[in-house]
């Protein structure tokens, strides 16, 4: 079978599985979804001449596993009461969530073409006006307190759904984040899981030159959290870390996912500038091809 037909066949299989809400079986399925998310993000930011592509590529594999297997959500019924709640606190990476949601069947993939456009459906920072998006963010340090509130409410309602919050390095500079970290431990919110997209680059520099968090995992443990450090681009590790939640009973869980900013496009990987620059037309095909070859 020619390669393009093979890819098409895999895509079709993944698509039908996702839309039926059936769990993904193996890393091949993950790969297909991750490729789509990355390619969508590259195209969306190129078309919008907009920033943050590095932040999107950084968390693409985590989103792949979350939406591929972990999150209990229903594209046919986005507001289903028992759904797992997912809050993207690093709202600037919203295009990657939009891409995952579109591929999962929450809305037509054509909507992705309107990202960042005049009168477009999809804004540069994630918006709850879009089916499947739990909460709008954009200013850092907002997601975790709200996720904590949802965890409090879920426990009060004796509901079984879980609350996930994806955060960035910059998010963890914010005082409000640490206020929420302390509260979640104090109240033993073990229905709450934070995933830190730990690419170690923030808006104006590398963490070691701005605000060094290391030993990050230990800090969080000292604050009363259960922490698991993983490779945020390894599907097995991502999936395994999220299978046995909470990591420790009566503690909130943190998955500290080591990632590479701009992952998959070698020319921008691990650069500060990929927080701002989109992949230009002349490099577009090469970037799309390159992310297609990952893992």
């Amino acid at each position, binding site marked *: 079978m020619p390669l393009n037909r093979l890819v098409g066949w895999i895509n079709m299989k993944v698509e039908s599985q996702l839309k039926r809400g059936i769990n993904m079986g193996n890393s091949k399925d993950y790969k297909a979804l991750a490729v789509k998310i990355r390619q969508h993000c590259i195209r969306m930011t190129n078309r919008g001449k907009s920033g943050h592509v590095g932040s999107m590529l950084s968390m693409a594999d985590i989103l792949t596993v979350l939406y591929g297997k972990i999150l209990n959500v229903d594209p046919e019924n986005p507001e289903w009461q028992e759904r797992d709640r997912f809050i993207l606190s690093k709202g600037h990476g919203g295009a990657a969530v939009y891409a995952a949601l579109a591929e999962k069947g929450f809305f037509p993939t054509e909507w992705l073409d309107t990202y960042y456009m005049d009168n477009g459906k999809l804004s540069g920072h994630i918006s709850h006006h879009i089916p499947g998006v739990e909460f709008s963010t954009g200013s850092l340090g907002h997601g975790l307190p*709200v996720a904590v*509130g949802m965890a409090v409410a879920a426990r009060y309602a004796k509901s079984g759904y879980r609350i996930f919050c994806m955060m960035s390095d910059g998010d963890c500079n914010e005082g409000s984040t640490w206020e929420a970290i302390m509260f979640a431990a104090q109240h033993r919110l073990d229905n709450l899981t934070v995933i830190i997209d730990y690419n170690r680059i923030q808006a104006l520099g590398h963490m070691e030159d701005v605000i060094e968090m290391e030993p990050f995992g230990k800090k969080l443990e000292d604050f009363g959290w259960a922490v698991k450090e993983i490779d945020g681009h390894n599907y097995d590790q991502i999936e395994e870390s999220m299978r046995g939640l909470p990591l420790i009973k009566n503690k909130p869980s943190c998955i500290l996912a080591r990632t590479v900013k701009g992952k998959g496009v070698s020319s921008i990987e691990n650069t500060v500038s990929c927080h701002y620059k989109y992949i230009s037309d002349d490099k577009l095909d090469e970037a799309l091809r390159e992310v297609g070859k990952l893992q």
Partner: protein
Amino acid sequence: MRGIFNKTLVDLARKDKRIFMVLADIGYGEIEPFAENFPERYYNVGVAEQNMTGIACGIAMEGNIAITYSIANFPTLRCLEQIRNDVCYHNANVKIVIIGGGVAYGPLGISHHSTEDIAIMRALPNMVVIAPSDLIEAEAAVTAMLEYNGPVYYRCGYKNEKNIHRGKIDFKIGKAIEITKGKDAAVIFTGTIGYNAKTAIDMLQTVGINCRLISMHTVKPIDADVIVKAAEETGYIITVEEHNLDGGLGSAVAEVLADTGNLNVKFKRIAFPNINISRIGSQEWLRGEYSMSAEAIAETIRNSLKGKGIR
């Protein structure tokens, strides 16, 4: 007033299991009944107003009613972005309650004064702004606030406020209450400074000046009809608020007058003069120092009306 607020809240929370209280380590001597009666719906987040507001928003997003509560500026300005982005943008059912509107905490200094809050809160889309004037309004406003689905800012007084109203009132969000029916001028007030406005009106009545007195307990959405009617029937509008001049009740009333073409009406705002009040003293003393004692309000109204040909 904070006493009646907390008592009413506890009464309502007994019936409505959706009501949560999320505090930032403030409320000693007042919030204990809620904490003791509803421990599963009571959270003290510690001294962390941003987290308080975010958590309240998350709780409210799940179908509950969450009340944030603290002194003066703490639950508004410290966490303004959480109120704007989280609460207002998501139209979350969060009620922001401050204790000590205006200079109720006068001697504690400017950190504990709330003199820009109405301006800032009413600038936020989806936010309802309520400032009850006495205990009767305060109690009714708690019920109305909790029945309303969406963000509300509730500017509570502190303690020992005197009543302006007698007996039951018809309190509706967005509907002002006309207290007296005079035609020489209309005095529109919001919040607990209303008692001084009422006393001033009573003083003026003894010298034959009959003012209409209106409690604009809801500054947003403002009761435009009552303002327009007052303008048409009296030709003179005076606003009274324990707040800086910029952006508060006076501004809101002026906007209505301008927007409705009532440009010939005489208009006077009584408020703090847009300063940081560095002087300290009791609420009543500070009010007096800035021309908001009953006598000073009466004097200002009387002087204003001289131009209208009334004594």
